Each structure stands twice: as structure tokens, then as C-alpha cells.
């Protein structure tokens, strides 16, 4: 079987060409063979997977199944999974066996997916390269000298190397879209509030959003149908009706108005990425869409504002990791303060500590207005820029990243260089909009083929239209079908 999209697997399962147990065994053996190279998984849940697969087969036999029943999935290790190690790629949670399931996991379990394991990530989702994981860097399946992107790098690498059919990810500033671009897969970040955050270990509460990392926009739609929708456990999850995202995938793009942000074409954008973007725009035009340039005048401030808002929220979100009720506690604390400081000092990695400190500083007496409030005001400006743009266009299309995947260790000297990697994705989180990265080309300048991603951004809760646009692109191109040699 070459095309292992969820849609294709679902058809094979339905036709009895393969059982979920067989499929699961196959994926488990692939993981056993290849994970040591990519380090995409932190935990492999073989026993659980086989039990779920057997149950899925039984459900199929009884006719009680949906499209995802029996499909092997991997969960980013930021999602709580009951009685399964949930580390957030941190020493702090190196021993944390979650006592409950995240809503996303619960819904996917109920839909009959088979959990293969928990994927590697940047520690507490803080990073754009997957190098901050306590469990070691993840390698890009297209070139193992390179990073897979982050923070959902393990999920993106696992999907790219076909170590799972589909995976969950989370996106706070680009953590689904950027690794999807680097790994040549489809990464979908829904609108803020579309999916419950219950059980998703919080990085920045007002920005975090879960979403699928998968092999096609159609697969993203299939997963969205399961995970989207209100949750009484999450106050910020919106109680709005969820459409069938697969129903509109084949709508025509005739008359679609595409906006390309002038600011995204400016200096800093790599040539190959720009070329791929232009080619993609031509495809859309051939499908009946019109393309015009638009302005996002405050986008250049998005990284600055983000690095106040996200660390500020994170500084409080990560205070619960204190060594009292669960997680890491340092050896032989001499007193309470020593327990706090050493448990947290030893349990968190350098990048996490930096962000906690930046956030603490931004909220501290005397700086709150100049940093935190200022960032929230800029956040409104950025949101207003998007509002204005969406008065003129239906979808905004631009690059996901300035260039293709960089080398492991390349950007570790100065955190700021790494932060600027997310210049095209961060504004979308600040504005709470849906965004998707889809493969749109392959670079070969480095000697190895490296995927190029483009980003499509929709208006508030415009997920269905966005998936439709991405799907139509994939119906007329084959970039999403390209796979690295594993």
C-alpha cells in the first residue's frame, strides 16, 4: 500500500483488505525499525495499540464504525493520555503518568483510532526545531542532519516517515504549520476556541490550539470532524455548530479571492520558497481564483508581541510544576525554597527557563504596562489588520517559513534567530485565525530534497473553506504525495 492517507486506509479497512490489527502491527514494526533514527516517538504504546486495534476490528465487524475506526494515530506528548506517560518532552514530567485523557484524545479514542504512542516535541512546546526536548532532538526524515521544525516536530516527522497514519499536534506560534512545512506534510491549526484545550498541557492559554498533522487536507477534515466542537470543560472552547468538514472539500474555487501579504514577500524570504509560492498561486488562478496583494502592516511586530504574551502566560502556566503533587522533585531539598528552586531549576531545560523568566519580567511591577499591556495592544492591531484584509479577500496565502529546514544546531547560539523563524505564522495565533501549511514544492539546493510549505489563512471559524481550498490544491498537484526515503 503506497498511499497511506487516512482516507485510503479507511477504505481498505472498510473493504476488509486489511484489518486494524494488521495495520497496527505494520506501523509498530516500522516504528521499531526507524524510530531510533528519527527519534519521533518518546513513548510507544504497543500493548494499548494492539488492544485498541482488536477492538476497532470488532467494531467494524459490528458495523459500529466511523472513518477513523482502526486508523493508527500518534499523539503529541503534550496531550494527557490516561495511564500513559505524558512528558511534554521535559525532565519535569519525565515520570508523569497522566490520570486522565485530554478531550482530543478522548474523542479520537471514541472514534476508534489506535494510539501508537506519544511523539517527541520541543520541551513544553517551546521551540521551532525540536531541539529543546529532554529526550533529544528529532531528525527530519528528508535529511537527518536537519531539524523537523517544532514544536510538533515528532508528529510531523512521524507522519512524513509514515510511522503513523495521522498525528495530533498543537500550535501556539506555528508549532503545527512550521514542522509540517519542514517535513512536507499537511498541518492544520484551527481557529482559537474550535477545539477543546482540556488535557492539552498549557503553554500559552490564549494562543494554544490543537490540530491534525497529516498527509492531506482531506485527512485533516476527517480528524477535524471528530475533534472540533464545544467542551463543557474548557471555557474558551466556542459553542458553535461544527460543519461536516468533508462535505465542502470539493467545492469549486471559482471566484475565490486570494490575498498575498506584501510584507511576506519582503526581504528575508528565501528564493525557492518564493518561487514555490508563485507556482502555487498560478495553480489557484488556474482553478478560477483571483490573486491580489494585501497589507498586514503590523506583522513585523507579531514576533515581539508574541514573545511577551506567550512567555507571560507560560510563566504562570508552568508554576504548577513545583515538585509537590506530581512530576520531578529534586533530591534532598534542604527547605521549601530549595525544593522549589532546584526542582524547577533541574526539571526545566534552558529554553523553558528563559521563557519563564522573560514572562516573569514582563509581568513584574513596573514593567506590566510597557510590556504586557503594550503587547496586548499590538495584538489588537494585528487582529485589525487581518479583519481589514478579510473584508477584501477570502483566503490569505503566503509562505509558512522563510526557508526550508535548517541543520540541527544551526540556530542555537541566539534564541532570537530561532524566534524569527516564526515570522509568518505567529500573527495567525495572535489573531486566533485558522491556518494550514501544505506542501508546495521540493528544494534540492542542499543536495537532498527538502519540502517547501505554503500557508493558507482563513477568517474566524473559516475552517471548512480553508480545507476546501487546500484540498483543491492537492487535487491538482502531487506535492503532498511526495515522501522521503525511509
Amino acid at each position, binding site marked *: 500500500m503506497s498511499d497511506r492517507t487516512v482516507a485510503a486506509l479507511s477504505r481498505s479497512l472498510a473493504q476488509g483488505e486489511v484489518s486494524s490489527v494488521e495495520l497496527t502491527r505494520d506501523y509498530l514494526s516500522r516504528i521499531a525499525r526507524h524510530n531510533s533514527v528519527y527519534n519521533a516517538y518518546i513513548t510507544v504504546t504497543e500493548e494499548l495499540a494492539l488492544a485498541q486495534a482488536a477492538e476497532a476490528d470488532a467494531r467494524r465487524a459490528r458495523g459500529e464504525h466511523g472513518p477513523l475506526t482502526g486508523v493508527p494515530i500518534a499523539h503529541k506528548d503534550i*496531550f*494527557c493520555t490516561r495511564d500513559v506517560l*505524558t512528558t*511534554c518532552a521535559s525532565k519535569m*514530567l519525565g515520570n*508523569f503518568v*497522566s*490520570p*486522565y485523557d*485530554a478531550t482530543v484524545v478522548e474523542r479520537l479514542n471514541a472514534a476508534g483510532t489506535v494510539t501508537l504512542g506519544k511523539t517527541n516535541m520541543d520541551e513544553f512546546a517551546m521551540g521551532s526545531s525540536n531541539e529543546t526536548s529532554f529526550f533529544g532532538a528529532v531528525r527530519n526524515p528528508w535529511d537527518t542532519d536537519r531539524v523537523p521544525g517544532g514544536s510538533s516536530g515528532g508528529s510531523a516527522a512521524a507522519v512524513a516517515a509514515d510511522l503513523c497514519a495521522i498525528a495530533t499536534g498543537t500550535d501556539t506560534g506555528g508549532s503545527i504549520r512550521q514542522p509540517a512545512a519542514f517535513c512536507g506534510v499537511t498541518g492544520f491549526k484551527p481557529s482559537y476556541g474550535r477545539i477543546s*484545550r*482540556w*488535557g*492539552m*498541557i*498549557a503553554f*500559552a*492559554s*490564549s494562543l494554544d490550539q490543537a490540530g491534525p498533522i497529516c498527509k492531506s487536507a482531506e485527512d485533516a477534515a476527517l480528524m477535524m470532524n471528530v475533534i472540533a466542537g464545544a467542551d*463543557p*470543560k*474548557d*471555557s*474558551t472552547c466556542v459553542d458553535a455548530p461544527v460543519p461536516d468538514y468533508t462535505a465542502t472539500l470539493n467545492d469549486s474555487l471559482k471566484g475565490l479571492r486570494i490575498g498575498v501579504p506584501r510584507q511576506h514577500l519582503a526581504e528575508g524570504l528565501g528564493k525557492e520558497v518564493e518561487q514555490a509560492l508563485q507556482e502555487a498561486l498560478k495553480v489557484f488562478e488556474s482553478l478560477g481564483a483571483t490573486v491580489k496583494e494585501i497589507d498586514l502592516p503590523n506583522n513585523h511586530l507579531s514576533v515581539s508581541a508574541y514573545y511577551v504574551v506567550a512567555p*507571560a*502566560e507560560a*510563566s*504562570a502556566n*508552568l*508554576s*504548577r*510544576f*513545583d515538585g*509537590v*503533587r*506530581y512530576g520531578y522533585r529534586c533530591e534532598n531539598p534542604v527547605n*521549601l525554597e530549595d525544593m*522549589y528552586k532546584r526542582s524547577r531549576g533541574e526539571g526545566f531545560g534552558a529554553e523553558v527557563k528563559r521563557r519563564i523568566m522573560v514572562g*516573569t519580567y514582563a*509581568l*513584574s*511591577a513596573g514593567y*506590566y504596562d510597557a510590556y*504586557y499591556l503594550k503587547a496586548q495592544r499590538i495584538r489588537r492591531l494585528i487582529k485589525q489588520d487581518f479583519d481589514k484584509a478579510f473584508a477584501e479577500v477570502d483566503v490569505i496565502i503566503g509562505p509558512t517559513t522563510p526557508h526550508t529546514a535548517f541543520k540541527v544546531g544551526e540556530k542555537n547560539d541566539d534564541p532570537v534567530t530561532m524566534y524569527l523563524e516564526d515570522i509568518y505564522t505567529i500573527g495567525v495565533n495572535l489573531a486566533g485565525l485558522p491556518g494550514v501549511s501544505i506542501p508546495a514544492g521540493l528544494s534540492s539546493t542542499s543536495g537532498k530534497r527538502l519540502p517547501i510549505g505554503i500557508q493558507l489563512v482563513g477568517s474566524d471559524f473559516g475552517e471548512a473553506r480553508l480545507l476546501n481550498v487546500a484540498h483543491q490544491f492537492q487535487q491538482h498537484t502531487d506535492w503532498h504525495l511526495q515522501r522521503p526515503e525511509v
Partner: protein
Amino acid sequence: MVWETVIGLEVHVQLATKSKLFSGSSTTFGAAPNTQANIFDLAMPGTLPVLNAEALRMAVKFGLAIDAEIGRRSVFDRKNYFYPDLPKGYQVSQLEFPTVGKGQLEITLEDGSTRSIGITRAHMEEDAGKSLHEDFQGQSGIDLNRAGTPLLEIVSEPELRNAKEAVAYLKKLHSIIRYLGISDGNMAQGSMRCDANVSVRKKGATEFGTRTEIKNINSFRFVEKAILHEAQRQIDLIEDGGRVVQETRLYDADRDETRSMRSKEVANDYRYFPEPDLLPVVIDEVFIEAVCKELPELPDAKCARFVEQYTLSDYDAGVLSSSRALADYYEQVVGICGDAKLSANWVSVDLQAVLNKQDLEVEDSPISAERLGGLITRIKDQTISSKIAKTVFEAMLESAQSADEIIESQGLKQVTDTGAIEKLVDEVIAANPEQVEQYRAGKEKVFAFFIGQAMKVSRGKANPAQLNDLLREKLKG
């Protein structure tokens, strides 16, 4: 030098919801440690808060009761600090946009005059857990059952001028929250806790002195003692040429002193910011009107009505309306016996004495309103005298019988038959010739002796008025 004390109180009231402010855990007091702490209360990663509707309703109810501005858009904030009884490392509270804004509370002073005390705000927040310091091999034990219990923190303006006013304020607050049914106000169990900001200044000065905050005051009596003590400490300090340091002090009831809590003084920077896991709470007119309709008659209104409707003195009306349960009890008694004044005396004096002695609330009174009403009915219709009534009352404490049953079984019915009383009088006069002579010689005081003798012989049952008349007539000779 004449000094004036300036006091502002911060009162934490636990709201009487069934479940916690942001989780579905029970708030019952006294459960085994950590059996009422769920994954949210334990701050397990990934858990999120959802606001308890009832807690919000209770806060608004309080706001309406003190005639306060209700925050139409209130915002929860995170208050960041590390403490083992604070699982998330931040307390969810309200800083800039509290649910209840400016209001006021009228207090009655000892001389009967009233004063209006400004309330700055009342905000909703989560309670913390408890640290137990018994010896666990030199460690502390943390119980998080209380963590997340809804609190309303009611902050007064610094308008109280002495310890007695502070107590009056606290008692009034206690009365109101109990009237509203939003808290049991039990200070011993910590459902109502008080911190006092105390400073002193020269009488007539307009600027405030440096204040200290006294924590851990858990009874009305201690509030008075702690403030008196702290004010005196500050005065002594200043008079000795020292200066008051702004700090938090802990009241130690056993030693009756306050002492500095230095550990809490180190660089408090709470880094408040809007809680991103919660959205702004919007309260509309419909919500407010619905809560308004649920408001009971409040102590001041009830007191005024008692004066008006039952022609009670201000004092009696004040005592009887101090608690809703007591007021309800009183009105039930009046309803049965039809005598407001007699009922007021029995409830506020006799019954209250019993309750105080047995340390009971009126809800747990050994004598129900029906039984007390029945007793007073028999005084009113002269079946028994007031004096015999005390005997019946005592008997009622020992049994579940009605007044009528006790009067019947103990034969306490008042004698009103003129013939029987006349016979009694004759007997007494015949038995005490010496006193008869004294009386007739003009020694008026001896009359009381005859009354006493006659009552003794009748075992108190003779109708006093009839006895009086007959005795006077017969003694004339």
C-alpha cells in the same frame, strides 16, 4: 496625646456552594485530607477552570444587598506566588474589574447611633488549601480539600475608628451574609475570616499613619482584642520615638499579641494579569433582576418593620432582626400567640439565654416556635401566671411536651375561682395574727409578706390580681 485608630477590614467569606468555584469537587467541611481535591484542584497539567454559576449569583446577591455597583463585565486575574497550599502557583482572583464594586454597610454603635461604612469592593477568588504543621518527620502535610472553595473578599474603606466599630461592622456583615444564605459565616471553621489593616494617628490629623495588616483573626472577640492590642503597640512604638513598619502581622490568640510574619515580607510581586483560561464574565439586567427577586428582607428593613408593625423598641427590634432565623422564629411565635411584646421578651431574653448557655443557634433551639407560642398563649389567656410560665418553660427544656400538656400534668393551672382564693386568704390571715396587726397598724410593707404566703400555699397558682384585691379587702378587717 490623644490617638485615633484607623481600621479597614478585609473579610473573606466562603460562599456556601455545593461545588468549588471552578471544579465539580465538593466543598463539604471536615472530609478526610485530599478526598475532595480533583485533578483541577490538584493543578494537574492540562486542566481548566469553568465558573460556578451559583458562586457568581451569590456574589451579585451580596452586591445588591449592600447597594453596590455590580460589575457588568468582571474579569478574573491570576495572582502569582508560590506556596505549597496553592497548587497552580497562582490564585485566580479579581483585581481591576471585581464583580461587586462600591457599596455601603450601616452599623449600629453601642449608644444606638448608626454609621455608614464604605465598602470598596467585593471580589471573587479561590481559597487555598491547608498546610498542617504537625510533625511529619520535620515536614509539613498539605491538604487541598479547601483549595478552590469560592471566596468573596469584602474590602472596607479605612473608615472604622475603633475596635468596637470593627466588631459592629463584622457582626453586621455576618448577619447579612447569613440573611442572604450565601455563607454559614462560621468563623471557627474558617468560613468567615478577617484581616485588619490598622494604623494610628493623632486625633484631628487628616493623613493616615503607616498601617500593618493583621492576619488570622478567627472570632469576633479576637477582632476586638487584636485591634486593641495592635493599636496600643503602634502608639507605644511612636511615643517611644519609633516608627511603625508596614508589614503583615499574625494575631496569636493564646498570647494575645501580634507578631511579625517576616517570611511573607520578601519581595511580594504578584504579577497579576487577566486569567487567559477564563473569559470576561458579563452580567446583564435580566440576571440582576432575577437575583433581585430572590433577595430576602434584610436586617435593617426587618428591624424597621418590627418597630412599626409590632411597636417594639429599637433595641428589641435590633436584637430580634440580627439573624434571619431568629426573626423568623419570633414572627412565628407572634403568629401563634398574637402578643408581639410578650413574644419579644420571651424570645430575646429567656430563649436567648438558653441558646447562649447551650451554645446553640436558634435553628437548633430545644423549644420550637410552636411550643413557645403555645406557652405565651397561656400567659395571655391567664391560664398561668408569668411566674408559673417560667416553670413551664424550664419543664419544656427537659421534655418535648407542649405547654398545655405540662400545665395539665403538673396541675399548674392558675386558680381564678374567687371562692377558692378567698378561702386561701382567710387561711393565711388566720395563721399570721401578728403580721395582721402590724399591717393594720400601718406597716404597709407587710402586705408583700401576705402575698408571698398565699402564693406559697397555692403553689404559685393563685391569680395575682385577684389575690391582691381580696387580700387588701380582707386585711382592712
